[in-house]
């Protein structure tokens, strides 16, 4: 190889390297030397082979039944968080029972109702006729009388409501738990049929 050829190779390879490193193609501004030098053509092919291999980086093969184990692990983590919900519900239950025990519910309620029934609303909205004021007062008294006669919170009623709420929460939780135990994270029917897109890289 003459020194002139050697210089042509150096320049061409420098050009090829800079194009490759920048991720560009080898078309525009291609040195004429490339058409006559088989060494530089071989070098270009090696760069192209590397580019092609980068585009075809393979997927790794995980262990057997990887997806099943993955879904099971996620389902297990969900179960743990459900136990946390149940623990929070139990704590709320204890707090409600304590509230029912210590708070003077009957007396407080009675005081509220007394002040509500003795209160007479006197709205002075501009343009409101007198029969409108009377109507509002009538509705107010009917509402307080209805509330007073229908329900008064007592220790027993607060506890009953709390127990009912906790039982409801526990049964919902148990239902979800049973569902989870039978493969809650299994593929949905739509996905099993044709909803799941093809995984592009196989």
């Amino acid at each position: 190889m003459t020194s002139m050829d050697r210089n042509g190779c150096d320049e061409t390879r420098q050009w090829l390297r800079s194009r490759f490193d920048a991720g560009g193609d080898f078309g525009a501004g291609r040195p004429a030397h490339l058409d006559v030098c088989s060494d530089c053509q071989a070098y270009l092919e090696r760069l192209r082979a590397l580019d092609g291999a980068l585009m075809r980086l393979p997927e790794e093969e995980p262990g057997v039944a990887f997806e099943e184990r993955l879904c099971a692990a996620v389902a297990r983590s969900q179960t743990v968080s459900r136990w946390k919900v149940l623990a929070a519900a139990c704590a709320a239950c204890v707090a409600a029972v304590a509230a029912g025990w210590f708070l003077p519910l009957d007396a407080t309620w009675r005081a509220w109702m007394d002040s509500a029934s003795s209160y007479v609303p006197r709205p002075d909205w501009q343009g409101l006729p007198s029969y409108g004021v009377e109507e509002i007062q009538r509705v107010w008294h009917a509402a307080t009388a209805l509330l007073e006669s229908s329900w008064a919170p007592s220790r027993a009623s607060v506890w009953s409501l709390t127990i009912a709420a906790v039982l409801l929460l526990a049964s919902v939780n148990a239902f979800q738990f049973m569902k989870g135990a039978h493969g809650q994270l299994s593929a949905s029917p739509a996905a099993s049929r044709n909803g799941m897109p093809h995984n592009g890289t196989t």
Partner: protein
Amino acid sequence: MTDVAEHTATHAWHDEAWAQERAARAQAGDAAAFGDLARHYGRRIYTHLFRLVGHREEAEDLTQEAFIRAFRFLGRYDAKRSFRNWLYTVATNVGLNALRSQRRRGQPVSLDTAPGPIALDERDTAARREQAARVKDAVQQLPPRMMQLVDLHYREGFSIREAAEVVGMSEGAAKVALHRARKQLREWLVEEQGQ
């Protein structure tokens, strides 16, 4: 746009639309929809994490951790954005954290083979397989963020901007890192034969 690029873009759009629909259902409490997502992305996330840690068992554990974390924080996913990008961001954080603690413990990342020059004959299947293995090993020897950019951009088809977002870089920094990564790979895999 070429036919291949058009097909890839259409496929990516369909894939993303499907994932967003499943993610929305999972957010609404449909755990089976999240199962679909785990099945669809599991192997790809595993590959991404395997590149980082170089151990099959550890990569499997990290993949599980990434999906558990994604499931737990699904409420934070903004349905207007790409689910794939969000999931890869979660997985990348899990992987980089693991790598940091691995280094703190002084455990080297294990790799089977050192990079060497790649075979040239594209028609020979065995040579192509050998070439793919060498390139894969070389990619795994890049610094972690650089390697993740290469994996996301070339294997997963992320744009440079998307890949930068996933690894927590600016787009400009990601371009520079990719340039350096290509240069490094060229020096490892081509120059020995080319010189």
